[in-house]
């Protein structure tokens, strides 16, 4: 049930990002005469100070926000897989070094580091922002994957592969990694949420590419355009709501997977009344 609702939300936003701009067709940055209008038949979600249509911005913003989220989650997970699996499989000194590195990145506060790194970027394009977010966001996945690899590497099929003379890299990526795909999927989903939030935070501070429309940059312009003081709730509510909804969708899918693994977590009606 949770997984279904979660998937429903994700499919909705994925379709919005992929097909939405084709359906709407308008330019999200196009300004018009009717600035700061509330939701109406013409502008479903109202307009900004410069008369940009907010629904159009939301639909185009989905591309950037989700694109950056997915792109940096892919990079972060590649790093996590590399560090976690290699450390977990080889053990010994390699594992020690990689574990310490993972734990260090786990403890260091990510957003301040992202802000500092973004401060040094000569150009803050979509790609470089995604890389910066990924560099600070891989540690959690690496830690989980390392723990799993430790338990998998003792199993018979890995021993068999080693006995038949397969090289370590082949064992790691063709024998162990397929078994860990569910774990990788969960950690990927969690990383996407974190990356979308980080991108939104960075754009909100005006530290990402402000020439492209993303949900974070919409909030930046809403804040700087005094949307709050004017009372233009339709300007800042939708972008934040979209971010939270995507996060909810991803979390629901993740919690659903957890519940399959740990049936105790399910919310069943407990017959036995505890007093």
């Amino acid at each position, binding site marked *: 049930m949770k997984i279904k609702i979660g998937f429903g939300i994700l499919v909705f936003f994925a379709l919005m990002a992929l097909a939405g701009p084709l359906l709407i067709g308008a330019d999200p940055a196009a300004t018009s005469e009717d600035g700061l209008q509330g939701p109406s038949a013409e502008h479903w979600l109202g307009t900004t100070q410069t008369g940009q249509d907010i629904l159009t911005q939301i639909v185009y913003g989905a591309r950037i926000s989700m694109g950056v989220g997915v792109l940096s989650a892919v990079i972060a997970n590649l790093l996590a897989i590399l560090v976690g699996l290699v450390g977990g499989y080889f053990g010994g000194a390699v594992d020690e070094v990689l574990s310490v590195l993972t734990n260090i990145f786990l403890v260091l*506060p990510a957003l301040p580091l992202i802000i*500092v790194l973004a401060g040094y970027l000569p150009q803050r394009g979509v790609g470089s922002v995604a890389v910066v977010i990924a560099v600070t966001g891989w540690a959690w996945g690496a830690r989980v994957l390392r723990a799993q690899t430790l338990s998998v590497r003792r199993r018979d099929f890995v021993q068999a592969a080693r006995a038949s003379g397969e090289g370590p890299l082949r064992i790691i990526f063709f024998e162990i990694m397929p078994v860990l795909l569910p774990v990788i999927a969960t950690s990927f989903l969690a990383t996407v949420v974190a990356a979308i939030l980080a991108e939104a935070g960075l754009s*909100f501070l005006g530290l990402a590419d402000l020439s492209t429309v993303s949900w974070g940059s919409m909030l930046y312009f809403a804040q700087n355009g005094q949307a*709050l003081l004017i009372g233009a709730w339709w300007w800042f509510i939708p972008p934040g709501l979209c971010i*939270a909804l995507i996060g909810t969708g991803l979390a629901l899918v993740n919690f659903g997977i957890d519940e399959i693994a740990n049936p105790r*977590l399910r919310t069943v009606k407990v017959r036995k009344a505890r007093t």
Partner: protein
Amino acid sequence: MRFLARRLGFYLLTAWAAITLNFLIPRLMPGDPVELLVARMKGNVEPEAIDAMRRAFGISDANLWQQYLDYLGNLARGELGRSITFFPTEVSTVIADSLPWTVGLVGVATLISYLIGTSLGVLMAWKRGTWLDGVLPAATFMHAVPYFWVALALVFVFGVTLQWFPVSRAYGLDVMPGMTGEFAASVLYHAALPAITIVIASMADRILGMRNVMVTTLGEDYVVMAEAKGLTSRRVMWAYAARNAILPNITSFALSLGFVVGGSVLTEIVFSYPGIGSMLLKGVENEDFPLMQGIFLVISLAVLVANFLADLAYVVLDPRTRQESE
């Protein structure tokens, strides 16, 4: 105490890593920060400022190793260079002025959020199958809400529309800072909305985390045994189940601190709260690299100290970590 010694060792290592990272970032990122600054300001930089920056970075003609040693030496003397935004104020002074605000705000808010969230999680696991389950979807939603958006919504509702609370600054313009009741009241009044933001945005993680661990713990034999002995449910819930469930919860709480601090930076900025988060943004906007770096270092070290405090709590709660021999 071997547990604590090992953790302390790890934090020292991490502190060294943060310090070294701080040294390497300006050197590894594309472009020379000093030239970047001069280019962006189209040459409108005073020579003293350029000089101060070079000194702050320890950028000189010496080799990298010598620069690193100089940097460590400056750091040991508490010298973080001069801020460019507030030239010629020392970065350490800027930080010393803004840090208390952040520590007060984030510290208190995090503590409140931890207490409420964990208690709610315990209750929700205990009363599974009742109306309390209705909190779950809400918590799932709140878990993904950006801090700054919560802040914006609170500003809109309670600040602008209802006008119950002030929406910026740390104390009113009409009070003089000092040890007076009036000033304290003004500070509390101004901290209300930012603190509520941090509590709301960070509580969901605590609720969900505690509930999940607690539910798993409730299935353990010793909990069934305690119930069978006829202990009061309050005793079973808090002294048997929650006491054990809280251990993993403390670990995940410590790990989430970095995230909370990140969110607090954004919250401060929305409320123009004069803490370290607002200073960080000022630093980035003004290409004030010494300030940025100093603040990153201080935030990292603060998170490390908080993590160590969480470890201390863990030692108090879990007798196994106090055993001398392992």
